[in-house]
């Protein structure tokens, strides 16, 4: 009886010690947006549906992992007309490529609460290496990773044909992400 009690106590201690790992992403409190320039004017958009997996202990970034799957059809590109357009072949071709995916291969500390996620972004069947800097702030058991990265749409063939030149829609697109995750029991 006594030893069972002791074992339970050990378990509790072990659980609290490892509870620093933020690994339950709250999709409803997370956002994935983007900003691009059209005729020199900034236009904002976002993706309504995406799922993210995260295992992040700020003290042990080397052990972290992160991946985001984006449902491209859930895009809001600024207007209903633009949403119809970007689903088409020349843009995301969402029938053929319904999802985009980012998988981090490493998360590196940059000092303070700043980190960078190094990984591969796949959109429309094309994969590119990207490095996304972000900050991580924890409040109690809730942590928020927030950052932005600029990608070039032409690298992924987003906007082909008449859209391929950059005088109406710029090549650079800034992706802004904000992932909120709760600290849960560490998965092994």
């Amino acid at each position, binding site marked *: 009886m006594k030893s069972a009690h002791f074992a339970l106590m050990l378990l509790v201690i072990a659980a609290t010690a490892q509870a620093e790992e933020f690994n339950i992403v709250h999709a409803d409190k997370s956002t994935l947006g983007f900003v691009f320039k*059209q005729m020199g004017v900034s*236009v904002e958009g976002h993706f309504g549906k995406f799922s993210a997996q995260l295992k992040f202990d700020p003290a042990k970034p080397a052990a972290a992992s992160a991946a985001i799957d984006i449902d491209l059809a859930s895009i809001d590109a600024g207007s209903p007309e633009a949403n119809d357009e970007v689903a088409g072949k020349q843009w995301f071709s969402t029938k053929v490529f319904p999802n985009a995916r980012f998988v981090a291969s490493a998360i590196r500390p940059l000092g303070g609460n700043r980190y960078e996620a190094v990984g591969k972004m796949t959109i429309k069947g094309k994969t590119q290496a990207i490095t996304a800097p972000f900050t991580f702030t924890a409040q109690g058991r809730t942590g928020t990773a927030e950052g932005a990265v600029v990608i070039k749409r032409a690298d992924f063939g987003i906007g082909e044909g*008449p859209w391929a030149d950059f005088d109406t829609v710029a090549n650079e697109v800034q992706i802004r992400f904000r992932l909120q995750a709760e600290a849960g029991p560490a998965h092994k």
Partner: protein
Amino acid sequence: MAALILGTFSVGLYMHDLPLSPMKLKIFSWHKWAGVTAFLLVWARLAWRATHRPPLMPATMPRWQQLAAHAGHALLYVLMVAIPVSGWLMSSAKGFQTVYFGVLPIPDLLAKNKELGDTLREVHEALNYLMIALVAGHVGAALWHHFIDRDDVLIRMAPQHSQHKELTP
């Protein structure tokens, strides 16, 4: 300036039904720049109007016609201001900021709001149709003066026509 407004009007009509393309986005921007230019010029026109009285209407004109003409002219001025303003507000509400000639950002007065944007589009459209109806009435009235009433109203709208000549019949 009339040419600019009519040009902006025609471009507006034309672009409205275009399928989305890079050309459409360019035309939209041009329309907005032209509209903003018209808006700026209208103030110059209003300043001129405030400091220069137009010649009196011919005494031969019936009173109701004079009143109608005054009301029509006043409304035209109001529309020349209201149309670009409604275009600007619509653009803000639709979430597409206006950047004059791609250089000078014009502040968004409204936050993005789809329903409001759609309403303002209808306002912009309705004001435009009202304006074009008034312009048609204006042109019709001018021709009427010239060919039916045979007075000098049309002639004196011409820029070379000086105040001086008017006083000596």
